[in-house]
């Protein structure tokens, strides 16, 4: 069976494009996986993977910022 352990699970908070988000990362095998979630309601917005945490997180932040900047505040 191809099994690996999830490692280095981490959650940090940030503000991207004016929206509070949670950045979640973990390592599975040789791959770092990063996802960005809106703080409210807690839905994931983007996910990336890369050989290093820095690479995967930079990409995730960039993509999330693009998506979040499209959210309109109506009042």
């Amino acid at each position, binding site marked *: 069976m191809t*099994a690996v352990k999830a490692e280095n699970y981490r959650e940090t908070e940030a503000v991207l494009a004016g929206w509070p988000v949670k950045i979640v990362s973990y390592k599975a095998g040789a791959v770092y996986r990063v996802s960005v979630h809106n703080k409210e*309601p807690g839905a994931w917005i983007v996910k990336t993977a890369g050989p290093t945490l820095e690479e995967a997180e930079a990409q995730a932040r960039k993509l999330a910022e693009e998506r979040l900047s499209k959210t309109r505040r*109506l009042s």
Partner: protein
Amino acid sequence: MTAESKAASTVLVSTDWVAQHLDDPKVRIVEVDVDTRAYDEGHLPGAVGWDWSTQLCDTLRRDIIPKEKLEKLLGLAGIGNDTTVVLYGDNNNWFAAWAFWQLKIYGHKDVRLMDGGRKKWLAEERELSADLPKPKETAYKAAEPDNSIRAFLPEVQVASEKKGADLVDVRSTPEFTGEILAPPGLPETCQRGGHVPGAQNIPWAQACKEDGTFKSVEELKKLYGGKGVQGDKPVIAYCRIGERSSHTWFVLKYLLGYKNVKNYDGSWTEWGNLVGAQVEKGA
């Protein structure tokens, strides 16, 4: 053990319990994620993955999964009528709860959620597998749909007008007030922002702790009871597309033991797009 915590023990399992039952032939573990690719990134060893967007719905008309399709899906997963089905997923079990609700509509007896979902499993640095299980197919027989746990538009309209049921909007406060039309970063899927007149806002996440597990029954009683949702009236929960409200439906029906709780799966993507529907804005 209180009646409520006894009820919870029949529908909730811990990550430890699941780890001990990964190879139990009477148990089938199923991952249902918001992100339908998450399963392929690595799942609990032996877990089957279901895609909510294609497998847990009618793909032609907007509806829950048809009975025959559900029977096939469960059969292919090796689930028999007496199998203990343990569901888990990302976003604190949003779509796992959605699958739970649908399995209950079709009368599956033993369905449980893994408390904390995928997040807790990862945070505990447990094992993940990329292998696809090959269960032996069964001939699953579903019951006729039990719509007593599902609310349709006419019932919600009556509840809004006559106040005969507690309407609980479980979306985030900015969605409820109409400040935004969809969760930040997600596509807008409605024409109007706001909420069903008479609904009150109790965001789904308030039922969870930081690690993704459910709060205690006492805390949950205080949360919902404090807003007047005490189970003495029918309750209808809704959100945007019905999955977050499945989560709240689960809490109210199974953790708090309220008798008459329905999930309005049409939710805001129905009401907020309905020509002529009254919409309330603000808190």
